[in-house]
């Protein structure tokens, strides 16, 4: 068996200390995206200015303090020389120092508080806009993307932006302020010592570059093999039973061990190389520290610098490396923030459904709907070059039950989706009671339809809430009546909490068949004049199916109904059967008429029951 393909998605995001060193993905339009992000911050202009000012002030105070502490030392040193310390001078200096620490603490905290408010407000707004956008996007958009991708924008990308807003931005400001501040303070003490200390910068840069470059290779390998290992694990655990049935345990373990060994190798090497960074930069820091001592000592002997100043200088040198690394980190983070923000913006700015805000030309009251649905020369394709429906014309009379049959991919479900205007037509027109559906508002149109789908979607709330989903104002009695009509009342009452039983997140506490019945109850309660049943009984066993069948008969009485089903036995009683193939009606008529015709339908039907 060939090696499984490296899995790109899974395991791609590995958290941890090493993660920071990976240059993240880049935005296509870095500048533009950042500009947009800045626009989002515009309403908080005033507060942001305060934040920046406070961040800088906080930094300034914390930068000046070593000098002041040095001055205090000098007072002590002077005291040592003359025999007695000038305590009032010392106290004065220390009090100034204390005041500076307090100021730094104050500005730092307040800036953090304001920033927390601002960043959370922006993140809230992002989430809110994405949430609202979701309901305005055409379904076509969702077809082209997996749920995972959209969720990743909603979760991971927002989290990245959140992190960046609440931490990185201020960090960047303080880092720059610190760098500049430190250089200024050092220059004040001694030009020559500053020049020497600044030599660390290029040295540090080179080290970081070399180390990152080296470990990059191993990091990439690590990601790759981690993806392989995780992919293999997932595949093999999922296929557990097949592995056993085909005696493939050994081969599977062999493949796994290969990946695992490679992963181990690259993992420790990447870890090792990246761990060079800290000690080496520390060594450079220490070396410059020694140089400062040497040079400072020389200058002090010459009387050109005080001991307090040496002490202050040492502190500056020590804290010089940190902001350099931080700026590098923040630069990386800005890249991935821009990439994340770009994806968020692209969703928010995505093209919306046609005329979503347009004033509807016609408004039909629900009581007045008769239920005549007609298709006139409808053509449609999910992709422009792949037509699914070619030239479809048909009229369903009020109260009629219309069954749609045909092989997979014939376009059965598509017709239903077009009726409810989930997609826009390529040509032709669909009308309900003579009104073109594009003249109605989507809300108005969709409230005419009740729908039961193969996919039994329920929300994680109580059973009652779920049945009431389409009509929030329905009374408890009405909910229970609908449940009775759907033959699910008894089941609900056997649950410990009855109608208030919560459906859990995965919906695992209720069987598929019961869920199906609940969705039917939901549709019954909606009291829509037109019903759509799309493969509503495909995944339940035959005895439950019989029950569902009966529930559906209750529901469809007197309403225009469209039924889609695999099992031909369930649609024999329809008033009219449309046989679809490749997006065209190949036959239509009643069950008997179609059998008599002895065509496609008869063939389908007989193949189902013929003796072998």
């Amino acid at each position, binding site marked *: *068996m*060939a090696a499984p*393909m490296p*899995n790109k998605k899974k395991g791609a995001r590995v958290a941890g*200390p090493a993660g920071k060193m990976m240059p993240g993905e880049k935005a296509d339009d870095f500048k533009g995206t950042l500009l947009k992000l800045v626009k989002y911050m515009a309403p908080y202009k005033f507060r942001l200015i305060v934040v920046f000012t406070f961040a800088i002030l*906080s930094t300034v105070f*914390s930068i000046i*303090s070593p000098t002041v502490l040095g001055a205090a*030392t000098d007072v002590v*040193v002077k*005291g*040592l020389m003359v025999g007695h310390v000038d305590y009032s001078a*010392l106290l004065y200096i220390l009090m100034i*120092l204390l005041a500076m*620490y307090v100021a730094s603490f104050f500005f*730092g905290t307040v800036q*953090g508080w304001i920033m927390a408010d601002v960043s*959370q407000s922006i993140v809230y707004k992002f*989430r*809110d806009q994405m*949430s609202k956008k979701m*309901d305005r996007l055409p379904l076509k958009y*969702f077809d082209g993307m997996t*749920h995972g991708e959209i969720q990743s924008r909603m*979760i991971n990308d927002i989290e990245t932006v959140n992190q960046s807003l*609440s931490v990185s931005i201020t960090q960047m400001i303080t880092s720059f302020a610190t760098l500049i501040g430190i250089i200024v303070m050092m220059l004040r003490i001694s030009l020559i010592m500053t020049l020497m200390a600044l030599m660390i910068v290029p040295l540090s840069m080179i080290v970081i570059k070399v180390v990152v470059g080296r470990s990059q290779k191993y990091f990439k390998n690590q990601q790759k093999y*981690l993806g392989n*290992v995780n992919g293999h694990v997932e*595949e093999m*655990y*999922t*296929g557990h*039973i*097949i592995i*056993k049935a085909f*005696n493939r345990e050994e081969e599977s*373990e062999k493949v*796994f061990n290969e990946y*695992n060994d490679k992963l*181990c190798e690259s993992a*420790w090497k990447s870890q*090792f190389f990246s*761990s*060079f960074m*800290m*000690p080496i930069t520390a060594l450079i820091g220490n070396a410059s520290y020694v140089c400062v001592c*040497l040079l400072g*000592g020389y200058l002090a002997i010459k009387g050109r610098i005080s001991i307090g100043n040496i002490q202050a200088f040492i502190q500056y040198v020590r804290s010089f490396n940190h902001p350099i690394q931080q700026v590098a980190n923040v630069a990386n983070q800005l890249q991935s923030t821009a990439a994340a923000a770009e994806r968020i913006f692209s969703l928010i700015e995505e093209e919306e459904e046609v005329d979503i805000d347009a004033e509807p030309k016609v408004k039909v009251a629900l009581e007045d709907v008769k239920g005549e649905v007609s298709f006139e020369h409808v053509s449609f394709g999910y992709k422009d070059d792949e037509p699914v429906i070619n030239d479809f014309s048909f009229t369903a009379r009020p109260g009629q039950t219309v069954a749609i049959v045909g092989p997979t991919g014939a376009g059965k479900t598509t017709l239903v989706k077009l009726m409810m205007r*989930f997609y826009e037509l390529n040509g032709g027109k669909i009308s309900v009671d003579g009104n073109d559906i594009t003249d109605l508002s989507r809300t108005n149109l*969709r409230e005419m339809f009740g729908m039961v789908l193969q*996919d039994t*979607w329920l929300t994680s709330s109580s059973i009652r809430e779920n049945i009431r*989903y389409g009509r929030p104002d329905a009374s408890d009695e009405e909910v229970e009546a609908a449940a009775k009509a759907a033959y699910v009342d008894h089941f609900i009452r056997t649950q410990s909490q009855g109608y208030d039983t919560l459906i859990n*997140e995965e919906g695992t506490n209720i069987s598929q068949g019961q869920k199906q019945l609940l969705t039917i109850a939901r549709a019954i309660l909606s009291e829509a004049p037109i019903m759509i049943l799309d493969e509503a009984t495909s995944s339940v066993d035959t005895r*439950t199916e019989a029950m569902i069948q009966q529930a559906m008969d209750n529901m469809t009485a007197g309403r225009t109904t469209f039924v889609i089903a695999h099992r031909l*036995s369930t649609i024999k009683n329809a008033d009219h059967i449309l046989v679809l193939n490749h997006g065209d009606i190949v036959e239509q008529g009643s069950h008997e008429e179609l059998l008599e015709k002895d065509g496609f339908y008869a063939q389908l039907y007989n*193949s189902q*029951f*013929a003796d*072998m």
Partner: protein
Amino acid sequence: MKTVLKYYKPYIPFVGLIIVFLFCQAMCELLLPGYMAKIIDLGIIKGDMGYIRKTGLIMLVIAAASAASAICANGLGARTAAGVSRKLRKSLFSKVTAFSTEELGTFSTASLITRSTNDVQMIQQATVMLLRMAIFAPIMGVGAVFMAVKTSLALSWTVGVALICVLVIIGICFVAILPKFKVMQEKLDRVNLIMKERLEGTLVVRAFNTEKKEEDRFDVANLDVTGINRFVNKAMSLMMPSLTFVMSGVGILIVWVGAHMVEAQNLLIGDMLAYLQYAMHVIMSFLFVTMIFMMIPRAAVSAGRIGKVLDVVPTIIDPETPEVIENGQGKVEFRNVTFRYPDADSRVLAEISFVAEPGKTTAIIGGTGSGKSTLINLIPRFYDVTEGQVLIDGHDVRNVAMSQLRDEIGYVPQKGLLFSGTIADNLRYGKGDATDEELMEALDIAQATEFIKEKPNGIDEMVAQGGTNVSGGQKQRLSIARALVKRPKLYIFDDSFSALDFKTDKALRQALAEKVAGSTIIIVAQRINTIMDADQILVLDDGHLVGKGTHRELLNTCEVYQEIALSQLSEEELERGRD
């Protein structure tokens, strides 16, 4: 936890070396301030440039030694972490591979995947961190305290005060912030859940016009998460400046107190400056140690989750002296078989007895939860019987080596599970040396030739992981073909025709009847027309065998069968079936 700790055992020498190296590093770091003090006290104040130069050189050497020690310790740490996680991963994988279906079920596949991937990754990261911080911080802390006390015992209370302040701040965080992190995660999960539900239910949401309702539901969750995030961020932005403040404050205290001691000739000025640095080291080490304490519980959870898997003793294992099936015919016999899940009261299968003869088709039908799948899973020993016996060619399946047992069986699961690789790779899964002709024949029987031909690369077409580029019906046919390539004596089809349309279903069964005539065939099905022509039909209801016979016999005698037939067949077909 204990189970996982055992995996560190071979690395004890490594850990020992790491301790040594980190000890060296800490000592070096702690020596530097002392030398700096000497430069000030003996060099600068006395004006001795030679002494300064000499001491400076020593300091450089010490700094280099410190860096070297750190690198060695890091390398060993990385090695240990990667090695331990490699072994953990390997053991987990072998263990899970050896699991029976039952043991797999107690954990769920998704959870086992997380345990083998994310949890191991977590352990690896935690190991790296712990081997660095958890060893270094205490050494550094103790060393710094020692040096500080040695430099000046009288000044030590200042550090004590600072530590108490730090402790109070951290204590407040533990009580006030830490629990909020959990709440934050819960709120975030809620946001994600609602989002997921809305994505999955887009169609329903729009059909029922409940966009506004969903948006409101989301908004509540969004406000919640924003609120808690705001709180946590604010609390954090209070914590960091507070800690910095304490650290700076202790500096003021040391200088003030130190000044008096310097004046009284109890303390050298350089030592006072060195003391400042020791104090910082003590506080930093203390902070690191608390950070480690926050990290350990998270790693312990992962370790516990991994340990739980490793501690499982597989219940289904090979017999010590396996019996060998010679010239197997594929005859299967159930003798009074009862099955219940461990710790469960109700029986999934109750006293089932039947014989499936070679050359004949035995079909099993019944409602969901009637025990059909469990029954056939007993044959390849995916589960073991609770009472009674399952025999294959006269041997109890528990007395035969599992590899031989499973070689006799061609198993087709309900879900057509394929692996990544080419279609041909998948077909050869049970018989690595099968020729292309054999593959073609199997595809022919499985009615898969036609759609394979439509693929641009034929049987060399790649199947994506999870088989996402193949439709459900195609997957089923391919997994049928995969079993056929093996040419076993016994075929088991676990509802394997459900995704096929009626035409294909029928053609497949016809081909099967012709081409594998001599083998035993056992079919589980939901659709009655799939099994109408079986030689023997078993009707299961709630774990009991309530009917055994042919379609005609059962139509006249078995009530459950009649019910199922009634719901699926039309009147004429029922009439045709009755005598």
